[in-house]
């Protein structure tokens, strides 16, 4: 309460008030120039609209002009009011679009029309705000100079502390107006979100498909030939059994050995698809087996207050698994570390190594697959791996309740 009282008392001398006044003046000047320019352009396009094509040409030119003005206003507001404004998505005709297509894209863009509307609405609004400030200030000056009744003095004092509030309200109006009309509309935001979700879904489906293909290839090229060969050894042993028991025994020995490696292969393959200990005991437990098979020493630190849900755990696990595979196969690292923690509803997975870097998320590669999996559950994924190293792989997954 006292804070508010102080801010009202100090209003007339505070930097914020004078910044607001400066901002309003700047907005008024640019607003006046832009308003006139745009109004003329719009009148011309209205006047020419009866000539087929020409009206649209001038309109698209006008809207492009409005977009330039919007970019200027965005910078102005950022510099003077310190507020960031996200510009709405403007038409981006394909690079090979014809002149006519470009023109049409601009003339029909609702976002571009909103930018023009901003210039038409802004000048009256800012002029009215400044008018109100001037009115209050004038009230204050006449109140003090005429110094009549006690009521007049009281009004003058009220005006003294009131005008900064009016000025700040005007400045806030300036920012709000810009945010509303220059920023993405609600439907624009929604359609951007829909597009993002669509892309994430496609990526998720693709990554699931490529994962299935990888599993098929591992089974087909790794395990199946071993089993066929095992059956072949036993088949040969059987045919030789009668006439040459010695060589039959050698074949059986070999088959026995092959059976054991096949079982081992199957185990690591199954673990690669989905380790059951992950479901049963969680991330920390599942990582033990993973790093045990890594020839590079890996430091693991998992700090979680509770278990994330199964999908989040699985994605986190595969971020680590793929990264550790890369550490083993490509990095040339001498040590690596895995740090998993949770803060503010975000699960953060960081894998670092001291290798020679140069890791990239190439399309179709393991890292790109991870990026898709993380994006599918609304997480973010980043790889920093400058040539010469070190490499950081970081995934942040929302895990809030």
């Amino acid at each position, binding site marked *: 309460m006292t804070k508010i009282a102080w801010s009202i008392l100090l209003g007339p001398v505070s930097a914020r008030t004078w910044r607001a006044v400066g901002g309003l003046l700047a907005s008024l000047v640019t607003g006046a120039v832009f308003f006139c320019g745009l109004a003329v352009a719009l009148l011309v396009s209205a006047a020419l609209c009866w000539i087929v094509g020409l009206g649209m040409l001038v309109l698209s030119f006008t809207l492009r002009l409005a977009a330039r003005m919007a970019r200027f206003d965005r910078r102005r507001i950022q510099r003077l009011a310190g507020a960031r404004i996200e510009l709405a998505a403007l038409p981006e005709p394909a690079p090979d679009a014809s002149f006519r297509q470009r023109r049409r894209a601009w003339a029909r863009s609702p976002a571009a029309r909103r930018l023009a509307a901003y210039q038409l609405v802004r000048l009256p609004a800012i002029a009215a705000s400044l008018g109100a400030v001037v009115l209050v200030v004038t009230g204050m000056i006449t109140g003090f100079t005429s110094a009549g009744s006690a009521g007049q003095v009281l009004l003058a004092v009220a005006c003294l502390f009131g005008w900064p509030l009016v000025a700040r309200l005007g400045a806030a109006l300036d920012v709000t107006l810009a945010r509303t009309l220059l920023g993405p509309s609600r439907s624009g935001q929604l359609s951007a979100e829909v597009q993002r979700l669509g892309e994430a879904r496609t990526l998720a489906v693709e990554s699931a498909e490529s994962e299935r293909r990888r599993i098929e*290839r591992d089974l*087909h*090229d790794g395990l*199946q*030939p*071993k089993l*066929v*060969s095992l*059956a*072949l*050894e*036993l*088949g*040969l042993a*059987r*045919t030789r059994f009668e006439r040459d028991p010695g060589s039959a025994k050698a074949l059986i020995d070999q088959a026995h050995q*092959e059976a054991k490696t096949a079982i081992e292969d199957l185990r690591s393959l199954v673990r690669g698809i989905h380790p059951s200990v992950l479901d049963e005991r969680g991330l920390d437990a599942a990582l033990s087996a993973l790093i045990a098979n890594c020839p590079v020493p890996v430091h693991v630190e998992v700090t979680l207050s509770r278990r994330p849900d199964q999908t989040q755990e699985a994605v986190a696990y595969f971020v680590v698994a793929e990264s550790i595979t890369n550490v083993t196969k490509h990095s040339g690292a001498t040590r690596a570390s895995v740090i998993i923690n949770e803060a503010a509803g975000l699960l953060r997975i960081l894998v670092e190594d001291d290798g020679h870097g140069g890791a990239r998320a190439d399309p179709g590669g393991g890292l790109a697959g991870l990026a898709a999996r993380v994006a599918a559950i609304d997480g973010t994924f980043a790889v920093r791996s400058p040539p010469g190293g070190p490499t950081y792989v970081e995934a942040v997954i929302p895990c809030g309740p």
Partner: protein
Amino acid sequence: MRAVIADDSVLLREGITRLLAEDDIEVVAGVGEAGSLLNAVEAHQPDLAVIDVRMPPGHRDEGLRAAIEIRRRWPAVALLVLSQFVEERYATELLAGETRGIGYLLKDRVADVAEFIEAVRRVAAGGTALDPEVVRQLLARSRQSDPLGRLTGREREVLALMAEGRSNSAIAESLVVSTGAVEKRVASIFMKLDLPPDDEQHHRRVLAVVRYLNS
């Protein structure tokens, strides 16, 4: 007899080499890739090529395409195509041209040594060996379901074995009946399906059956 083996698994190449050696078939070259297969066949002109369908670089159907290429360029080389999976469509592609000496079997069949060697011999001698699984798919996909329905159960069994490429005596042995009984059934099948009368060249009768099932 001389053979070339193409399979990207060294383990299997060695295994099959040993298997063929069991029956005095000499393996003159073992390769792991479709391109080198063509070179090996050109260099050695073997009697037989044993080819895995899926091979590097693409791990798709490189082996099958190499087989078709070999048939086009060196028609005298018998082809035994092996695969982890058999597909009726691949068989049809293989049999599309000249069908002398063509085999298409599941890889697992190598485990039954005697039967596998028998199939190798049959193919090398100009016969046909189609995996029972392929024949099953052909029968299931056949659009000629009406006439097939006119066959008796035994006749269908004989038709399947015939499509696999077996001779009358082999069919008789497998069904434990006399060769004469098989001959009678074969004649009856050919009549019911309106196929040209049985040919002495048995690869041609396989072809007739397969074409029929496929049409």
